[in-house]
């Protein structure tokens, strides 16, 4: 353990009584409770913390907060590991383990750094220019590039932590607990409003935490007093460690609360690791502050180059010296305060280099009075040092920022820079608010809001604490008073010197540190025609890292504007999009994982299916038995056995999942006439009929059998997957187009358990189970239904068939489902009843040439395409009817349903395969259709397939060609009714 050589003997908001040991890149170090990983590393003199994304250059800690582009680490290992976290945002806990990302084998000796030597070979757009050959080659290169470009590694195992989601409503949501936000929350809270105050840090205070006590501009104890008051108010909820990351329509915001991240693995199990807040706010007060910008000069990315405000935070909040000898370079006054505070705490300030020709003001005079050397009209033009900055080269610059004098080298181990401040207007922009460019501050400020939102404090350009508090109070109270104009701010605005153009194209001056975008990259992109900021961003990746360009975007825009000879507002800014900070997938998923990800629907007979070893198929949310393999059987053998049982004896299938809609009311017949293609006037009570539904575009929507239960009452069945959609479709028409119809709908799918008994023995099995239903063919014909008792249970029996065999569907109240199922299996008719699954049913219906919704249809198939002209009534209108007369629907180029027999009867074609009229001869091929269903038919002892083919049955007996990965299959177009085309068995 080291002695934290850069820790000051006193001060800071750390708990010196509680030392904390942690490990960084395998080295054991010590910090204090209250440290961030970044401050603890600096206390130990560790500045080299990572390698950059593209060039693998050594990088240090640039900031002290959420804007950090460099200091990315992989936190912990194993399944709790999180990649690419900012060291400046990780609170230190006992035993913390972190490693650098983006380097191999180690951060000090990184093999990838050879790219830095060859950097001229990898300019902006390098990947787009280089890896596009040969065609499709990108997929090959991408894996290697991803590994090289690194970033952290996502854990591969299951996340052991728990995440939660919370919904909250409030009158006022205050984002940011600096002086403005605290004043806003206090004012709103005293006013009686329901307030939520969210802040990303561990405690309220914001910038006050980073300032020396005498510099804060507040009375001593103001911050802790307000915090205590807020916590005592019942109508105020303070959410610390909570980052508001997204601002959506109608004042809906998303915030991520890091509940136990700061406790590490020792967190109490009763608490979630993170909590995603979904907040609906009456009003929003954005007091999100401002982020300091770097200056763009050659080699401005070496470890030891830091934002001036960050250095202030490390000295004051953490009592850490980020260096011993500093060069300060700035274009505004704020860095002077940092310089003075560091000077007071023992840092030698070699010089304050000011881009401005005649800096003036309280802070400047203060520095001069303290004996610090100020170099007006100068800039840092280069730096020295490999893993740590060792010197700054300083030169006089002219009004355009060009070097105008000899360079002077200043030895230092720290360069503090301040390129002015960018208001954190991200959330305001996300909310739809317009930004305006403030020339003197060189910053985009909130302008016209689109939602009920007010901004307060540094986000408006306010520079002193008193103004921030005043704005906060006003915003928190009524939200009507206009924000104080930024120009009224007592701090003199910076001069326009964001980018000093020295040796452009030679050494690299970084703008986006995380993505290694240099000033030269931006000028190159502009020369190549990427003049729009949105294009520039995508071409150079400026601002596309995990930090989303919080520090570098505005300097980048200024460089683009300078290259194009335009003003910054003319160039504009890229769109701010959520999230403001990365959000973990765990928090987004919350508890909706595993069994809770989606509801599972099971039929009353599910336990039997499970016990019988069924393989299940997901159909919508339903679990349906796919097939029931017996010991030693594979899928093909099981399906063959089941389908043969239905053809030769009798099978039973659980069809509970089919949608059931009860239709009541005196206009039910008229309603059915409108939604189905066929006529329903003549359907007697006790009978049922197959119906086909179309969309208004004429495409097949769904099908099913509807039974006439009693006068004014029908029971409609739908396909399993479409049940909810059909009910919504019918409701839509009833409520919005036909409110005059006296019709009421109710879903009764789950009220009944239904099973299909199918096969030549079905009648004999049923005879043994009923005593009050006459099942003789004459008394109970095909497409009739009867009510009575089956196995002693109240039942409706429908004589309908999807297999082409004699079949009955028996419905009982759901609670009797299991009883009936077991009774049927145990009956003693002499027939063994074989349970069959959906796959056998698919085979059976395909043998009959029955199209299946969602298999033969895909929303582009009409009844004419399916050869179902017979079901289209010519005597009435129905939904979609007019579309069938459109010329395009009658065109000979439409694909129509056919059967396919492969030349090799053993070959089962994959579904979806393309069909060619001639043997393949190389692309482009003429494709005339595709296979929609394909099975091994045990009944026919050959493979069968259904297909949609241009010309349809006109091509009957023609040979077509089906190219596959390995060779081409030949097949003959045929009648899709492979089995019993006359339908004799159905009535048997």
């Amino acid at each position, binding site marked *: 353990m080291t002695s934290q050589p850069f820790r000051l003997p006193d001060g800071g908001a750390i708990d010196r009584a509680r030392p904390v040991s942690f490990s960084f890149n395998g080295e054991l170090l010590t910090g204090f409770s209250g440290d961030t990983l970044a401050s603890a590393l600096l206390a130990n003199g560790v500045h080299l913390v990572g390698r950059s994304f593209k060039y693998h250059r050594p990088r240090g800690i640039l900031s002290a907060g959420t804007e950090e582009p460099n200091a990315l680490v992989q936190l912990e290992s194993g399944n709790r590991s999180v990649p690419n976290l900012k060291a400046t945002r990780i609170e230190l806990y006992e035993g913390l383990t972190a490693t650098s990302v983006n380097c191999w084998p180690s951060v000090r000796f990184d093999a990838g750094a050879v790219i830095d030597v060859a950097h001229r070979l990898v300019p902006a757009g390098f990947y787009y220019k280089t890896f596009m050959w040969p065609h499709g080659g990108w997929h090959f290169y991408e894996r290697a590039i991803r590994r090289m470009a690194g970033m952290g590694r996502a854990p591969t195992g299951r996340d052991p932590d728990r995440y939660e989601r919370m919904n909250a409503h409030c009158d006022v949501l205050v984002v940011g607990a600096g002086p403005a936000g605290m004043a806003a929350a206090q004012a709103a809270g005293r006013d009686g409003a329901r307030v939520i105050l969210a802040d990303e840090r561990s405690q309220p205070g914001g910038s006050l935490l980073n300032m020396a006590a005498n510099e804060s501009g507040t009375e001593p104890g103001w911050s802790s007093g307000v915090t205590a008051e807020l916590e005592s108010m019942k109508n105020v909820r303070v959410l610390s460690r909570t980052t508001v990351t997204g601002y*959506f*329509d*109608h*004042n*809906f915001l998303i915030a991520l609360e890091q509940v136990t991240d700061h406790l590490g693995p020792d967190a109490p199990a009763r608490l979630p690791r993170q909590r995603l807040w979904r907040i*609906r706010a009456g009003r929003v007060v954005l007091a999100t502050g401002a982020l300091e910008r770097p200056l763009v000069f050659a080699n401005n990315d070496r470890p030891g180059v830091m934002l001036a405000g960050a250095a202030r935070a490390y000295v004051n909040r953490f009592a850490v010296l980020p260096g011993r000898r500093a060069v300060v370079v700035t274009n505004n006054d704020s860095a002077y305060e940092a310089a003075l505070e560091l000077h007071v705490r023992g840092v030698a300030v070699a010089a304050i280099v000011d881009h401005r020709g005649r800096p003036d003001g309280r802070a400047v005079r203060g520095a001069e009075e303290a004996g610090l050397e100020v170099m007006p009209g100068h800039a840092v033009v280069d730096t020295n040092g490999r893993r740590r900055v060792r010197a700054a080269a300083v030169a006089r610059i002219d009004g355009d920022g060009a070097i105008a004098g000899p360079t002077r080298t200043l030895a230092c181990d720290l360069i503090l820079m301040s390129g002015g401040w960018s208001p954190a207007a991200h959330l305001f922009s996300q909310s*739809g608010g317009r930004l305006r460019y403030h020339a003197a501050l060189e910053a985009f400020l909130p302008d016209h809001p*689109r939602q009920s939102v007010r901004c307060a404090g540094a986000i408006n350009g306010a520079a002193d604490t008193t103004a921030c508090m005043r704005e906060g109070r006003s915003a928190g109270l009524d939200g009507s008073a206009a924000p104080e104009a930024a120009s009224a701010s007592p701090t003199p605005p910076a001069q326009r010197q964001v980018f000093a153009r020295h040796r452009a194209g030679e050494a690299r001056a970084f703008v986006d540190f995380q993505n290694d975008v240099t000033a030269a990259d931006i000028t190159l992109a502009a020369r190549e025609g990427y003049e729009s900021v949105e294009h520039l961003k995508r071409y150079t990746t400026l601002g596309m890292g995990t930090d989303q360009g919080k520090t570098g975007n505005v300097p980048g825009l200024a460089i683009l504007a300078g290259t194009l000879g335009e003003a910054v507002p003319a160039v504009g800014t890229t769109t701010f999009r959520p999230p403001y900070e990365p959000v973990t997938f765990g928090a987004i998923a919350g508890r909706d994982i595993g069994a809770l990800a989606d509801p599972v629907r099971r039929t009353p007979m599910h336990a039997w299916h499970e016990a019988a070893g069924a393989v299940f198929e997901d159909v919508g949310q339903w679990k349906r038995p796919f097939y029931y393999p017996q010991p030693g059987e594979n899928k093909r053998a099981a399906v063959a056995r089941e389908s043969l049982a239905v053809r030769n004896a009798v099978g039973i299938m659980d069809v509970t999942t089919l949608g059931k809609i009860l239709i009541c009311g005196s206009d039910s017949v008229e309603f059915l006439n409108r939604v189905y293609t066929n006529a329903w006037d003549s359907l007697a009570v006790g009978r049922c009929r197959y119906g086909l539904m179309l969309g*208004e*575009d004429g495409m097949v929507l769904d099908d099913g059998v509807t039974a006439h239960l009693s006068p004014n009452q029908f029971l409609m069945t739908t396909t399993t997957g479409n049940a909810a959609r059909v009910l*919504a479709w019918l*409701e*839509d028409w009833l*409520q*919005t*187009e036909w*409110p005059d119809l006296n019709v009421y709908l109710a879903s009764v799918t789950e009220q009944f358990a239904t099973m299909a008994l199918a096969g030549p023995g079905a009648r004999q099995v049923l005879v043994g189970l009923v005593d009050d239903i006459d099942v003789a063919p004459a008394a109970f014909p095909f497409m009739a239904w009867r009510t009575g008792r089956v196995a002693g249970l109240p039942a409706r029996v429908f004589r309908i068939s999807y297999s082409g065999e004699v079949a009955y569907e028996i419905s009982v109240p759901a609670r009797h489902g299991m009883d009936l199922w077991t009774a049927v299996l145990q009956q003693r008719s002499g027939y063994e009843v074989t349970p069959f699954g959906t796959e056998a049913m698919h085979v059976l219906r395909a043998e009959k040439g029955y199209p299946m919704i969602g298999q033969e249809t895909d929303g582009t198939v009409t009844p004419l395409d399916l050869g179902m002209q017979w079901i289209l009534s010519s005597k009435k*209108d129905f939904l979609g*009817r*007019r*579309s069938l007369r*459109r*010329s395009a629907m009658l065109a000979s180029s439409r694909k129509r349903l056919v059967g396919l027999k492969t030349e090799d009867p053993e070959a089962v074609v994959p579904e979806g395969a393309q069909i060619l009229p001639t043997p393949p001869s190389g692309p482009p091929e003429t494709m005339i259709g595709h296979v929609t269903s394909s099975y091994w038919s045990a009944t026919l002892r050959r493979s069968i397939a259904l297909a949609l083919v241009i010309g349809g049955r006109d091509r009957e007996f023609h040979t077509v060609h089906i190219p596959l990965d390995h060779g081409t299959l030949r097949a003959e177009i045929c009648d899709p009714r492979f089995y019993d085309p006359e339908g004799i068995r159905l009535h048997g």
Partner: protein
Amino acid sequence: MLLIPCPWCGHRDESEFTCGGEAHIQRPPDPAALDDAEWADYVFMRTNPKGRHRERWCHSHGCGRWFNVERHTVTHDIVAVYRMGETPPDDGDVDGS
């Protein structure tokens, strides 16, 4: 996420609703009398205004009722909500009807 005032249930999150597209498109009483272009206009063509737009919404995860919403497609402000069959608020600025 929009906050939609269902005329039957009050303000609810958008995730409880289904949007049914442009409102006040009446099904032609005699489709057979229409030529292809007229029918296609009814089935396929919708206005897509930048501005105020009248739409059908269904409180599908609530009361299940359809109703009309007048929404500004840029700001997402909900200008008016009215039940099926009710007269839309009289306003000449609406682009969607």
